[in-house]
């Protein structure tokens, strides 16, 4: 990728290589990696004979199930995300305007809430199978019904709520594709399908891959769904080893192994992309002439877009609403509003912080490209694939150590006790959120940044703007859409976040997700539904705003 470094305007290279931006990027990366490093360092600690036990019994299950889950979610999010994005962006059919933004809605659904509702309805003792038995007089073993609590079931649940990552990024990519390229493709005689497969899809590749990687990292880190479905994966294995065997070391070693797999995944993606460049060479944009679909084709397009929306959002939200209607009057009290305020506040703070850090990293990578900044950014986004509770442990241990070390030193030298400075504060929680969700904000910012051709930088610099002025006056305005996307994604994810919040929170601090979990784990799903639904509702507003903002951001649509 070309950039400032080779433009001849090498003002930046005046000083030594370790200048402010590089140091800042390294510092951020070191902080963000701290919890992950604490986890990875466990590899060097002996964990007794836990490994020979795991290897001899359940490890194969963990590996196989995790691989199936990853492969399934990758395929599902790719097919659903890309096809819907292309249809609503490039084709004209009834309902397109609504579907454009509605297809993002499943993002607001916590995966565990979707899993709870489907399991409740589709289980043997659920309403669907009970109705079938009552209607047809069937008994046990008289009929076949797909088992929802299974690996395919988990793939479906995760795929349904995670495809919007692929959809949003692919759609943003399709929208920003220069119309010239597509027109050339069509004047050369390509039909809609051919244009999609040969031009649209390859040009959108980085965005699509980023979307799938995000979905997969969340899949690997997921605990709620696989635990509820009793599917043994790495993630459930980590907790079983920690809680059941009482061996935190072996558990973090499992997590470290998982990290290795994620790292491999990222490396393969980088390798596959190779040296290809995806900047747009022209800035000529006009509204895209849509492929007009009629008759059966229009119906087909509608069905393809409505189905994921129905299964990923309307059905589970409808079920939650039906249950919430019975319990809401009892559940909604002062505590409910306090929890909601807590949720929104920490989610907003986490969003601002995660975007600021992502922006810092992206700027550093832009101004000082090279292996140092590349690796710093890669490594600092690993936290997303680690189960939240494991990241939380990685935060808790060094923070606790730091607090106690400072306290000891102060007691010895100054004679006062400083107590716990960081542990059990909102700061520790927010730090954990940033570590966990930096991958989301960074990818969104970076994908926006990569579309700004270096020619812009060169032109700005040639006209006398310094690097900071160029960033402020050229990049920042062009990035506004990406920054908004990043903030909304982190906001929604923080609203849904559970395990890290649970462990790290201060006294008397509850959120909607915590209450949902507490009620659900007490097997009071009807009461939990009001809280789960409110997570969806509070997360919905920014998601809808985001969708509208993306539609507006299309160059040529002013």
């Amino acid at each position, binding site marked *: 990728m070309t950039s400032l470094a080779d433009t001849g305007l090498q003002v930046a290279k005046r000083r030594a290589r370790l200048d402010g931006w590089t140091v800042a990027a390294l510092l951020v990366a070191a902080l963000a990696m701290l919890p992950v490093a604490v986890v990875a360092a466990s590899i060097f600690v002996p964990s007794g004979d836990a490994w020979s036990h795991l290897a001899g019994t359940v490890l194969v299950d963990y590996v196989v199930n995790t691989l199936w889950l990853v492969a399934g979610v990758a395929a599902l999010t790719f097919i659903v995300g890309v096809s819907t994005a292309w249809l609503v962006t490039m084709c004209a059919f009834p309902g397109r305007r609504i579907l454009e933004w509605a297809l993002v809605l499943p993002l607001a659904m916590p995966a565990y809430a979707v899993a709870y509702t489907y399991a409740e309805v589709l289980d043997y003792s659920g309403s669907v199978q009970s109705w079938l038995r009552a209607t047809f007089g069937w008994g046990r073993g008289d009929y076949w019904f797909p088992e929802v609590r299974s690996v395919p079931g988990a793939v479906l649940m995760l795929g349904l709520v995670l495809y919007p990552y692929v959809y949003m990024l692919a759609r943003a990519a399709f929208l920003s594709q220069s119309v010239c390229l597509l027109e050339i493709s069509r004047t050369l005689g390509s039909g809609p399908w051919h244009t999609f497969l040969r031009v649209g899809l390859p040009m959108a590749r980085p965005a699509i891959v980023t979307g799938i990687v995000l979905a997969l990292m969340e899949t690997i880190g997921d605990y709620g769904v696989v635990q509820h479905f009793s599917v043994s994966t790495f993630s*459930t294995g980590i907790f079983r080893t920690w809680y059941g065997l009482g061996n935190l070391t072996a558990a973090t070693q499992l997590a470290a192994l998982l990290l290795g797999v994620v790292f491999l995944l990222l490396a393969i993606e980088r390798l596959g992309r190779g040296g290809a460049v995806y900047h747009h060479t022209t800035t000529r944009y006009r509204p895209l002439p849509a492929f007009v679909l009629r008759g059966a084709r229009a119906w087909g397009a509608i069905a393809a877009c409505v189905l994921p929306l129905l299964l990923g959002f309307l059905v589970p939200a409808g079920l939650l609403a039906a249950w919430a209607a019975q319990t809401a009057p009892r559940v909604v009290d002062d505590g409910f509003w306090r929890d909601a305020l807590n949720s929104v506040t920490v989610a907003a703070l986490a969003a601002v912080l995660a975007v600021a850090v992502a922006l810092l990293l992206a700027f550093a990578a832009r101004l000082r490209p090279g292996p140092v900044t590349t690796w710093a950014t890669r490594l600092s986004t690993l936290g997303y694939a680690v189960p939240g*509770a494991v990241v939380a442990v990685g935060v808790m241990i060094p923070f606790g150590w730091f607090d*106690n070390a400072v306290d000891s030193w102060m007691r010895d030298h100054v004679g006062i006790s400083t*107590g716990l400075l960081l542990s059990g504060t909102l700061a520790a929680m927010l730090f954990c959120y940033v570590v966990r969700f930096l991958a989301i904000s960074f990818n969104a910012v970076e994908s926006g940044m990569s579309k700004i051709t270096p020619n812009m930088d060169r032109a700005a610099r040639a006209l006398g703007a310094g690097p900071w002025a160029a960033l402020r006056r050229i990049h920042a305005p062009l990035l506004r859409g990406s920054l908004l996307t990043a903030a909304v994604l982190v906001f929604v994810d923080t609203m849904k976040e559970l395990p890290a919040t649970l462990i790290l929170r*201060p*006294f008397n601090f509850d959120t909607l997700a915590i209450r949902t979990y507490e009620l659900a784990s007490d097997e009071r799903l009807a009461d939990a539904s009001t809280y789960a639904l409110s997570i969806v509702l509070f997360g919905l507003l920014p998601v809808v705003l985001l969708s509208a903002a993306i539609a507006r951001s299309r160059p040529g649509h002013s």
Partner: protein
Amino acid sequence: MRGVPLRRFAGFAVVASALIAAGPAAAQGPAPGEVNVYSARQEALIKPQLDAFAKATGIRVNLITAGEDAIIERMRAEARNSPADVLLTVDVARLIRATDAGLLKPIRSEELEKAIPSQYREKDGRWFALGLRARVFYYNPEKVNPAELSTYEALADPKWRGRVCMRSSSATYNQSLLASLIAHKGAVAAEAWARGIVANMARPPMGGDRDQISGVASGQCDIGVANTYYFVQMQNGTDAEKAAAGKVKPFFPAQPGGGAHVNVSGGGVATNAPNAANAQKLLEFLASPEAQKIYAEVVFEYPVRAGVAVAPQLQAIGTLNPDTLELSLLAAHQAETIRIFDRVGWK
């Protein structure tokens, strides 16, 4: 010129962290008249007792809840500066794990020793049980004659092949049940039992305790295993739960050397408790007749204190004849249980 952007970022970071640090002031510096509770029990189940304590003593109660193991890990990381005064948790294995990690300190309290039978507390006063729950059978009366039912061991008999609903072995309740079998009969017999149960399962282990009862009610299996309070909660729950509970009957099985397997919820005083005196007061209050009555009525647990009435709804499902095993003995077998479960393929 180039220094400016970084300084701006730094300025932002300082302001942001100052804002953040100002937030949790309430968590810091316990004033006299406070007690800080780390609870693995959910808020809804413990709040009524804590509110009653605050009302009776004027001591302010600060609470965080989290998972059983996570909360122990947090106390460990916070070490000597931990604000925790009292740890409340469920399952005797957790109480013992906290004890082994040095997180609980011995206390002498005549009040607690008088109220709580010795098999339900640690001998040096590091932890005390505050409520009891039994893990019992639920059967479909159309398919099962209660005369066929006896002990946990008998459930591994081949005549139950394909008829048993069991929860995952990740559930601590099943781990402690297996640990009690190891304590009674040894690890070899316990492993044979677990293998027999796996062979008898009607479906792979899934869901929570209530799902085992629903499994029996819907005809997926003929017999299921779940804790007592879940059944009573279902009887007092939604219409669907009431209907399911109405279709099954509870049966209190015996252990080889005694009655039904019981587990506990309980607590202890933190080693580094800043308000140790208040912490002890809280534990004594939780064992008092007043608080024990709340335990019984809110959570449908069996009171640990003799002389406090069992909730009528719980009494109605049968009389508990608890296993007399000293619970602290279970801890030694905890890690072994997971190994056995993994070996026999009990998911």
